């Protein structure tokens, strides 16, 4: 592996890969969806929670988190563990919002009490979390959110609705953004932890263009949130949310969230293999120079993403701390989408066959995967918003409000 690893890191990598080889679970009877946010069946949930708990116990999750918060107290081991989980092609972690967003937010902004009580069940997967940011009227323009929280003694009373709530149907807790001051757009938002089991919470599934469910609309009617479930100060919600979104965009250090089994790095290899097999006019697509050029362009971009990640480790060559990290979500999601689109073209008429058709290539995964790539290009700040952020924060261009 990496030549400049310490002896401890190398040993830990060896431990991770050996443990994964021994404990990786057999596949489920009905295949798992491609990503954690599409899980809807109880069987899949049980299987995945069980898997996450085992990985946590083995030290593959919360690897670098201090012990007093339920972590394993290592330093610079998490990335090794996560890399090995991916390499082993092991199942993803169902509590990806808990791991990817709630934990980093609590570690950065939570009270001592909040960290001690909420973090361990996030790591084990016992408590699944969802995120209550987007609203029917507040998507990419998140700051226009309307769900209100009104102080009532030691509690807050919340009214409104949230949308695109992945895992809302399984979640015990929600990361909630609510408006506490109608007159101050940016400083009028406060960050809360809301119980999904509280009175007044209704969860309604939304079906995606793929036909799958997995995300929801959540209605909040007179929902009581105790004040000690507030994260950071009243009115600081927007700032805290920005740090959460930074994690969502792949810039945070992380506690080991792995949300999906799909990786563009594997996909390009698969596409080349498909092109060497699929024929038009008596020759394979790979024998056609037009197709080779198309595929090598995608290979180049995939390799560019891999090497960007590598360059992240050489600070002098980064051109600023956020320049490469803030590109990750944008370039990864757009590349993934084009890879899938290209796969459909390679398959030609075969790409019309969908899940459940006995003749479908890999049970329709390319068509399914293609449609699901829009999750990446739209959610967590659409690609258009990402380009604004990059232009403004990295290049210092004037703000587009």
């Amino acid at each position, binding site marked *: 592996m990496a*030549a400049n690893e310490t002896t401890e890191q190398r040993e830990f990598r060896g431990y991770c890969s050996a443990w994964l080889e021994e404990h990786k679970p057999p596949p489920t009877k009905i295949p798992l969806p491609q990503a954690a946010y599409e899980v809807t069946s109880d069987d899949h949930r049980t299987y995945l929670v069980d898997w996450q708990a085992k990985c946590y116990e083995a030290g593959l999750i919360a690897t670098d988190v201090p012990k007093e918060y339920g972590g394993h107290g290592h330093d610079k081991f998490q990335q090794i563990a996560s890399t090995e989980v991916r390499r082993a092609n092991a199942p993803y972690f169902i509590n990806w919002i808990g791991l990817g967003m709630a934990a980093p937010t609590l570690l950065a902004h939570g009270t001592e009490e909040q960290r001690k009580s909420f973090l361990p069940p996030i790591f084990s997967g016992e408590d699944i979390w969802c995120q209550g940011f987007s609203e029917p009227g507040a998507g990419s323009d998140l700051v226009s959110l309307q769900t209100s929280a009104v102080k009532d003694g030691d509690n807050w009373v919340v009214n409104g609705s949230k949308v695109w709530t992945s895992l809302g149907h399984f979640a015990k807790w929600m990361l909630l953004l609510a408006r506490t001051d109608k007159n101050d757009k940016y400083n009028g938002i406060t960050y809360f932890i809301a119980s999904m089991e509280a009175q007044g919470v209704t969860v309604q599934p939304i079906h995606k263009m793929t036909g799958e469910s997995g995300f929801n609309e959540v209605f909040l009617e007179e929902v009581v949130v105790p004040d000690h479930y507030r994260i950071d100060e009243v009115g600081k919600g927007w700032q805290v949310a920005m740090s959460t979104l930074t994690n969502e965009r792949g810039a945070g250090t992380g506690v080991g969230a792995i949300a999906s089994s799909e990786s563009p790095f594997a996909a390009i290899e698969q596409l080349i293999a498909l092109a060497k097999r699929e024929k038009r006019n008596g020759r394979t697509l790979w024998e056609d120079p037009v197709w080779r050029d198309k595929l090598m362009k995608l290979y*180049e971009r995939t390799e560019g993403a891999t*090497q960007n990640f590598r*360059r992240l*480790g050489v600070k002098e*060559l980064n051109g600023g701390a956020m320049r490469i990290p803030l*590109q990750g979500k944008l370039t990864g999601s757009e590349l993934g989408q084009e890879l899938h689109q290209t796969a459909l073209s390679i398959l030609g008429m075969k790409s019309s066959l969908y899940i459940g058709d006995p003749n479908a290539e890999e049970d329709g995964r390319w068509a399914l995967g293609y449609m699901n790539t829009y999750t990446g290009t739209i959610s967590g700040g659409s690609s*258009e918003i990402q380009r604004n952020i990059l232009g403004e924060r990295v290049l210092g*261009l004037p703000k*587009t409000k």
Partner: protein
Amino acid sequence: MAQPKDFGYGEEQEMLKDSARRFMEDKQPLLALRESIKGTEDPYFGENRTGSYDKAAWHEMVGLGWTALAVPAEAGGVGMNLVTAVAVAEEVGRASMPTPLTSTLQSTFALREAGTESATSWLSKIAEGTSMTLAIYGKEGSLEADSTDITVSDGKLNGISWYVQDPQKIDSLLVAAMDGSTVKLYCVDLNAGGVDLEFDRIVDLTRDQGRVTFNNVPAECVSEDGAGTLQKAMPALLTLISADMSGGCEWLLQTTAEYAKVRTQFDRPIGFFQAVKHPIVNMMILGDQTRSLVYAAACSYDTDPGDSHKAAHLAKSSASDTAEFCANRATQLHGGIGFTWEHDVQIYHKRVMHSQQLFGDGVWQREQAAAYF
């Protein structure tokens, strides 16, 4: 084979790169260039450019050890690797500096791959400040090594070498010539009798280019297997020119972003508008991909040669497409001023355009890379 995760880019490389950057800031090579091209603007009636460059700066660069850095220690050099050379080449490109350095570094890596005693003695000369360029193309500018129009018999070279880079700036040539059906490599002092230069009129203002005619020129063979040597050196040649382009593209990005902050239209800085902002961000995204692929290719050449051809073809492919996009958007987003002779965008635009074709554009590189799958 394992590659170092950090591309082998350490303190030494950063110090050198930093000093190169400060050197360029100090020299402001475009000011001297502007002075030297006065009166040559008109393509119909103007004079041909002289390809002049800052010779004092070149001697300083030699003094700083930049020509010696990639020359092996046994030939009197510093024996540094390609990643180190790339770090410097990027700064040369960022400054669009007219200099024979890139050609000389490329010749250095070709001579290293030749591995003969005569090659070593020429490497010693380079370490001491002799500049060198490659003379490997025939008239068609086809990219295969055996496309040279030069022949050799009785140790003497005859024929014309086309598209030679920097002939007005260099002291010696590394020539590909056909000995029967075998490509061999020869080193020739430019001042040797029988070498005639004719200068091309080219678009790029920062380089010069020409045809070199050999009339019975005695030459020293440095590689009996010229095709093999060039093939082995090709990753280094491609990566060095890609590094120059990566630096140029970063300048185009930063200059365009700065302009978009100060140029006001419709009562706003134009960078406010997403139709302007987003393409600038796309310049950055492409530039970063190229930069990462360039360092990866350099590291591969240094530590993992089995993979280095693929890596270098990808780097040059990416550099070519990035250069095309960045040059195009930089000129477009600067509006009228970007279209003028006066603005430096045109200088960078033309330099990366020229570089795009050197050793083959993106389509060619991708076709070469595909052979490794």
